[in-house]
């Protein structure tokens, strides 16, 4: 709390980013964990909550007649503009937030103060929901070729790896340790996924320390052991996910890639995925495009292309497809690495697993996939997502890209996933929120030292509890799309990859489809289930009646339940929304007449759920257009009323300006 200079500022305006004319007046609170904005409007008192850990940048803009604007950009792509009347207050808020957004100790993070009021037993149960040991058993391990190795017990060999790992049976401790010494940060080849059907596997590691000529017998034996663990094939692919040039440059630093001459029976392959710095810049460029105020179509498409974002997504997908094909179609095992083997390698291994195994396309399976390829294998969550104040050059949207790859696949295979888009969005949110302990630190070792399981709660249990919100109604366990490997495209199709406005513009509700097919269908299914139950009861009753009638007793059958209103309250009829700025001018088109209401807030579904479970998530997101309505309709404050009328005059001009 010592960092909060001003805990409360009144008469702050929250500016609508889409039409800057519209703003709501309210009070700003700073707490140890959140920025909270509470609207003055008496009937709603709508609250906007922003977690400090979500804050990406804070920008103080030039003071204007109305006050001091503060622009807060969040890691979950929310952008909030506040106008604070007094320069001094604004400065205080600014300085406080700068500090609050950059905690220096883990203990400052939200997860250590977040208390969902669960008892110890429930918390522990939550952490037991996802069990990697069980997962390897599900894959069919251990077996005659693969075994669980304790070589990394107490993180003796590699401190960023998990303590329990699967390796080929023929790889002795000597070979593993020897190989680890020849790999960056001692991240030796270990199993990521085992494909039961044909014994092919995906293994992962970091780059070899080969320089220009170095070699290591144990490392060569290690790769040999991986090959032997797949009796069906006489070679393995070694996939370096970096662009060739980057890999070559690493040789000068004593690192590099495998020389095919030194390893017997490998086929070496580069797949050019760019490094974290390129990805960080690419996202930055794309977000700039998303942030443009009423961009033209050309500006948007040109900016999107220029950001290169979708090209990078495609590169990751292509790599995942390559792996999945090698394993499922050729029956060849693959060893994947990049530089350290914790970014691109994690992306590619998890995309490949997802393509190969329908289990990972279920709710629980997807949690396990993230636990397996990201959390346990030491993806540096703390560094990549800037949870603690650290080197900004370490920050990069690596897992965001993976999550987007999943969404792109969901768009192409709408029946293949048990979960829906919302599930992905909430996972992305919580990777940054630090509300749960799952993504704390940079490795399993660090999390153990932090006693994460004793002191924080697990996101997976929270998501699992609310799983009804995350289901894809089109998913059916016996549907052909949910069986086996996803059909992998044979020709590269660029147009398959689309801009994900549901993620990057997710707080601009006006840009999203106004009716959700998913929620509509979920409501239908829910009703269907109720009907099924009712019918069952009725049938039982009918049977009884028939029996009774047989007994020649006259009983009048009870009329059935009144027929249900066929509308599904979640989505129907609540489509009234407010028109946007169609006048092609920065100034908004006047809208004088009363709007039809705020029904559209009901449309931005699931907000009720969010309010209960994730107050931070609902934030400013709902009722956006409702807010717009209020601002021009409610006579709250004479000042606004007069402003409104002047706005109308203005806007008439605006109409003419275009003339």
């Amino acid at each position, binding site marked *: 709390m010592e960092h909060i200079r001003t805990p409360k500022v009144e008469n702050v305006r929250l500016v609508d980013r889409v039409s800057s004319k519209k703003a709501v007046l309210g009070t700003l609170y700073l707490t140890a964990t959140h920025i909270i904005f509470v609207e003055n409007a008496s009937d709603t008192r709508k609250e906007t909550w922003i977690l400090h850990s979500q804050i990406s940048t804070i920008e103080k803009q030039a003071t204007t007649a109305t006050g001091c604007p503060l622009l807060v950009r969040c890691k979950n792509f929310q952008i909030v503009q506040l106008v604070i009347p007094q320069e001094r207050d604004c400065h205080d808020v600014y300085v406080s937030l700068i500090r609050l957004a950059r905690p220096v100790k883990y203990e400052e993070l939200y997860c250590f103060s977040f208390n969902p009021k669960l008892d110890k037993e429930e918390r522990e149960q939550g952490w037991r929901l996802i069990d990697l040991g069980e997962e390897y058993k599900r894959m069919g391990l251990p077996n005659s070729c693969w075994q669980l190795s304790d070589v990394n017990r107490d993180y003796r060999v590699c401190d960023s790896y998990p303590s329990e790992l699967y390796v080929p049976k023929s790889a002795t401790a000597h070979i593993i340790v020897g190989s680890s010494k020849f790999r960056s940060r001692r991240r030796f080849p270990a199993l990521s996924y085992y494909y039961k059907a044909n014994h092919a596997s995906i293994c992962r590691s970091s780059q070899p320390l080969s320089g220009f000529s170095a070699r290591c017998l144990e490392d060569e034996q290690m790769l040999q052991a991986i090959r032997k663990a797949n009796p069906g094939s006489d070679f393995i692919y070694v996939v370096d996910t970096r662009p060739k040039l980057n890999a070559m440059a690493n040789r000068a630093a004593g690192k590099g890639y495998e020389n095919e001459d030194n390893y017997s029976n490998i086929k070496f392959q580069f797949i050019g995925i760019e490094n974290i710095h390129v990805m960080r810049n690419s996202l930055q460029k794309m977000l700039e495009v998303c942030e443009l105020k*009423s*961009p*033209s*179509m*050309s500006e948007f*498409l*040109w900016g*999107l292309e220029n950001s290169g974002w*979708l090209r990078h997504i*495609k590169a990751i997908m292509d790599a995942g497809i390559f792996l999945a094909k090698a394993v499922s179609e050729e029956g060849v095992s693959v060893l994947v690495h990049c530089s350290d083997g914790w970014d691109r390698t994690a992306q590619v291994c998890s995309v490949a697993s997802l393509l190969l195994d329908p289990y990972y396309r279920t709710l629980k399976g997807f949690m396990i996939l993230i636990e397996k390829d990201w959390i346990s294998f030491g993806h540096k969550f703390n560094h990549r997502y800037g949870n603690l104040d650290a080197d900004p050059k370490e920050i990069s949207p690596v897992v965001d890209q993976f999550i987007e790859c999943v969404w792109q696949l969901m768009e192409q*295979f*709408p*029946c293949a996933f048990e979960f829906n888009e919302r599930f992905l969005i909430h996972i992305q949110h919580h990777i940054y929120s630090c509300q749960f302990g799952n993504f704390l630190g940079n490795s399993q070792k660090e999390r153990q030292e932090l006693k994460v399981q004793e002191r924080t709660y697990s996101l997976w249990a929270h998501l699992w509890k609310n799983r009804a919100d995350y289901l894809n109604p*089109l998913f*059916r366990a016996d549907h*052909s*799309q949910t069986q086996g490997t996803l*059909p992998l495209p044979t*020709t590269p*199709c*660029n*147009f398959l*990859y*689309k801009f994900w*406005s549901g993620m*990057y*513009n997710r707080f*601009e509700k*006006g*840009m*999203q489809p106004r*009716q959700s*097919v998913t929620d*509509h*269908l979920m409501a239908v*299914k829910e009703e269907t289930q109720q*009907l099924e139950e009712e*019918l069952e009861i009725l049938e039982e009753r009918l049977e009884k009646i028939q029996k009774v009638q047989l007994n020649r007793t006259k009983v009048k059958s009870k009329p059935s339940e009144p027929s*249900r209103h*066929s509308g*599904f309250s979640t*989505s*129907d*009829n609540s*489509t*009234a*929304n*407010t*028109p946007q700025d*169609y*006048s*092609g001018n920065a100034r908004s*088109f*006047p*809208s*004088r*007449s009363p709007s*039809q209401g705020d029904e559209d807030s009901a449309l931005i579904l699931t907000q009720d759920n969010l309010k209960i479970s994730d107050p931070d998530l609902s934030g400013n997101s709902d009722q956006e257009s409702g807010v717009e309505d209020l601002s021009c309709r409610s006579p709250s404050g004479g000042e606004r009323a007069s402003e409104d009328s002047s706005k109308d005059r203005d806007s008439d001009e605006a109409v*003419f300006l275009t*003339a």
Partner: protein
Amino acid sequence: MEFAELIKTPRVDNVVLHRPFYPAVEGTLCLTGHHLILSSRQDNTEELWLLHSNIDAIDKRFVGSLGTIIIKCKDFRIIQLDIPGMEECLNIASSIEALSTLDSITLMYPFFYRPMFEVVEDGWHSFLPEQEFELYSSATSEWRLSYINKEFAVCLSYPPIVIVPNSIDDEAVRKVATFRHGGRFPVLSYYHKKNGMVIMRSGQPLTGTNGRRCKEDEKLINATLRAGKRGYIIDTRSLNVAQQARAKGGGFEQEAHYPQWRRIHKSIERYHILQESLIKLVEACNDQTHSMDRWLSKLETSNWLTHIKEILTTACLAAQCIDREAASVLIHGTEGTDSTLQVTSLAQIILEPRSRTIHGFEALIEREWLQVRKAGHPFQQRCAQSAYCNSKQKWESPVFLLFLDCVWQILRQFPCSFEFNEHFLITLFEHVYASQFGTFLGNNESERCKLKLQQKTMSLWSWVNQPSELSKFTNPLFEANNFVIWPSVAPQSLQLWEGIFLRWNRSSKYLDEAYEEMVNIIEYNKELQAKSI
């Protein structure tokens, strides 16, 4: 003329057909007067039936004596036929070329088509102007039917019956017609029952360089305003273009003469600019070699989505004037036959729930684009060729496709508010370019009358509105929504219409399965509901 004269080789054996996402098929190729047919003569294999009028362009090439014809269709599909024998191949190619570019409309398939279904409801009589007018006359007495255009005496491209303000007599209307491009005087397009505001449409006023005015024109459109109220004139051309039009005798309404009206200029592109945009877009979609970046850049250079955004924005603006500003709107461009129709019809989709139903949408197309009452998108001219043509005629233009695309964009944003589905829009697109039905033949009502389409051809609606067909076009998610729906026109909200443009370039299997799954979920629910009542 006999078709036989054009068909030098009616039949070739051992022809191999290549289509995207299907295995090659070997079979016998037959040419008839209107169809190209390939039959493998095996059971259970699909045959290819292609209307000659669907063929946009063909390429031929030879390797030895094996000829190959590449057929590019107006629905953007590309198929390949390998024909053994150089002479046969040349004959087939020249026949296809001749048969796909017949000059005379009366030789086209709709004049020969004999329906295999029983006509329950004749589509030619489904949307009579009197009936449509009744929908309004129950709500207002400010408008009347006028028979002034009987025999097309006043305006060739208007139908015989039009709706004009009650207070304006036919004599005045006649004078107004001389002041508007093509005689297209302002007529009622849409009446907003909620507040009595209207959308009118017309041709541009013929002010010329010396600022000619027409008192009757001013009186006519002022008659639609309530006391003390103002209206908006939306000119679909930029101010610059509208000013240039004065040199050719056209122009726009001067503020001085129309003080109660505010004029807004938007710039919706027309004619060959749209056609070139379509050609570039389809080229980009068919090019599978380029990298991710070039795909987006090609999509951008085609400008197709820019046109979509511009048209939708203008329609939203018109709807906003009506519903939010409570102001009537007059919409025109130059002729009032293209961008004007896009805007008036999309505004109605936004404002009026009825036009989001299947029957209502058909009525809208009839009213705004075809014969009844308003009349006159020159379909024959605009849709003679499609994306693969190289004739580059000024009047060829995918105006109607852009309209359908805009409807799809709104449908995507409001997936539960439309009674029809995407398949319905795609089907309409197909029939506009090549059809067995007469609905989209001819350029305007008077031409359509001369062709005796009603007597000699079948209406598309007669087929569509059969219960068995309707079910295919019905959106299972539909729930009547009586609100105005405001679509987003932000670039992030607009997408390439994959169902049209990527239809032949990617497998739709998984999307089709998803649709089926959706139908099943809803059907099963309905079944249970029926049981439990």
